[in-house]
């Protein structure tokens, strides 16, 4: 059940040039959060009024871990937040990834979209599963998850400065023949990447779950602003709310041409 609270900053550290890790004490949210869900952070800013959504990258007892990238003035502001400060948050929000216990679980994170994949990976490992994790980015200046036990990590960069040269979906397609069927893909990243994953899923008949992103205001279905075009089960055009109906959708539900 979602909850509003004054979270306390436990840690806020720089990971790479633009990536930061934020640890927030928020016991009720931490207790309830599942991989794929997100929180809203309130900024108390009278000019830029919207809260901002962040995927949960992990749970550490009473704490939430976020991985955020500086993309605008609000995330820039966050880098100045100090340990002990309080910031109001709302969560956990949205639906979550549906876990498959058989076959191979493949996680695909692009750019800062890797954040929810880190949470999902820990979760799968804790259930005794051994996920394959594909992490892709433009170049080696971006953030890549650390290697951990019981999970294989595949890194790619567009410019080849780290790992496989090419995009993360090309990398996955190169490796996919080696994986035990059935394969389940879970992903979060740029729209183009997720569209390519949808095609890959169709080609190899693989179930793909995508975490969608869009401009969002309230985060809980009040404003109905975070709409995206989707398809119903019968293939009819539909509109879904990322905050409430998502952020996780089956790939076949998403209308990328809308």
């Amino acid at each position: 059940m979602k909850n509003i609270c004054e979270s306390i900053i436990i840690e806020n550290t720089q990971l790479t040039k633009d990536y930061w890790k934020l640890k927030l004490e928020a016991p009720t949210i931490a207790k309830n959060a599942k991989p794929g869900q997100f929180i809203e952070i309130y900024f108390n800013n009278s000019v830029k009024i919207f809260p901002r959504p962040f995927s949960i990258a992990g749970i550490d007892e009473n704490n939430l871990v976020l991985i955020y990238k500086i993309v605008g003035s609000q995330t820039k502001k966050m880098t100045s937040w100090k340990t002990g400060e309080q910031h109001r948050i709302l969560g956990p929000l949205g639906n979550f990834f549906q876990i498959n216990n058989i076959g191979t679980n493949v996680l695909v994170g692009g750019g800062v979209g890797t954040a929810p994949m880190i949470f999902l990976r820990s979760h799968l490992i804790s259930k005794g599963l051994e996920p394959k994790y594909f992490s892709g980015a433009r170049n080696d200046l971006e953030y890549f998850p650390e290697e951990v036990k019981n999970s294989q990590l595949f890194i790619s960069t567009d410019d080849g400065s780290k790992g496989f040269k090419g995009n993360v979906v090309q990398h996955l397609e190169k490796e996919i023949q080696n994986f035990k069927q059935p394969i389940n893909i879970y992903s979060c990243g740029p729209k183009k990447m997720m569209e390519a994953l949808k095609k890959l899923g169709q080609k190899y008949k693989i179930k793909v779950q995508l975490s969608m992103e869009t401009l969002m205001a309230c985060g809980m279905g009040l404003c109905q602003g975070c709409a995206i075009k989707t398809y119903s089960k019968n293939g009819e055009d539909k509109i879904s709310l990322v905050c409430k109906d998502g952020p996780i959708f089956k790939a076949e539900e998403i209308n990328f041409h809308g």
Partner: protein
Amino acid sequence: MVDLTIKISDKIELQNPIMTASGTFGYGDELSTVINTNLYGGIVSKSLSLEPRIGNPPPRIVETPSGMINSIGLANIGLSRFLDEKAKYFQNYNGKIIINIAGKQDDEFYTILKKLDKIEWVHGFEINVSCPNVKEGGIQFGTDPEFMFKLIQPMRDLTDKFLMVKLSPNVTDIAQMAEKVQLAGCDAVSMINTLYGAAIDIYSGKPKINTVVGGLSGPAIKPVAIANVIKTYKAVDIPIVGIGGITTGEDVIEFLLAGASAVELGTVHFFNPNAVDEILQFLVSYCKKMNIKRLRDITGKAKI
């Protein structure tokens, strides 16, 4: 002890003047697990139409300085599903329930009104004649005084319940619209709905919302709303429910002084869902500080 109760006409008494603005609070029950929704004097539901509406295609919202533009297009689940799914929650709700009605033609308004008039937990109606985001009907109902009068006059015969009309600021003279509402025998006016607004992405050259022009709301529009309330308070005797960018208790007092009997909180729900709690605390402390026994006594008391 400070008395926060207010009457909007003889038909409806609220425990305090704070209500929710349609379209910013879902159907009324969504936030019930996050905040204490019983704190409100009343809940105004999302706009209801007879049949479900899918709403406008994305993008539907954009953040603008101290505000936002929306173009949701009155997406809603329709009357039947609303009654089926929400009755249980509202039957147990402490405050007053006002249903916002949005139709495309006269008949749609009347049909919904007739059906809801019989529902016990519905305490009143807010008629949406002013949505800027619906092509058919919407705009003309809200901008042409005679056209609006013809639409709302028959409503008085369809219900004895509280009947309020929500007015658009996108008119030459909002007071003239309010006079028509009074003439039609309605109990109150609520104002203001959103202002016309648009925003363009300078890199793609594309409008930032699908319908190009949408409705501007949030703190940015508060001064426009205050000006319209002042003007309307002078023109009509029926109560005014003030809407437009209310964020704090101070804002509420300003609306009351301008002439509002009650207010609706809107966009603030998106960035401070618990605003109602903070506002009520301020109202009590303000009344104590200013030695006001009954908050309702300050309506229209701005020294103008």
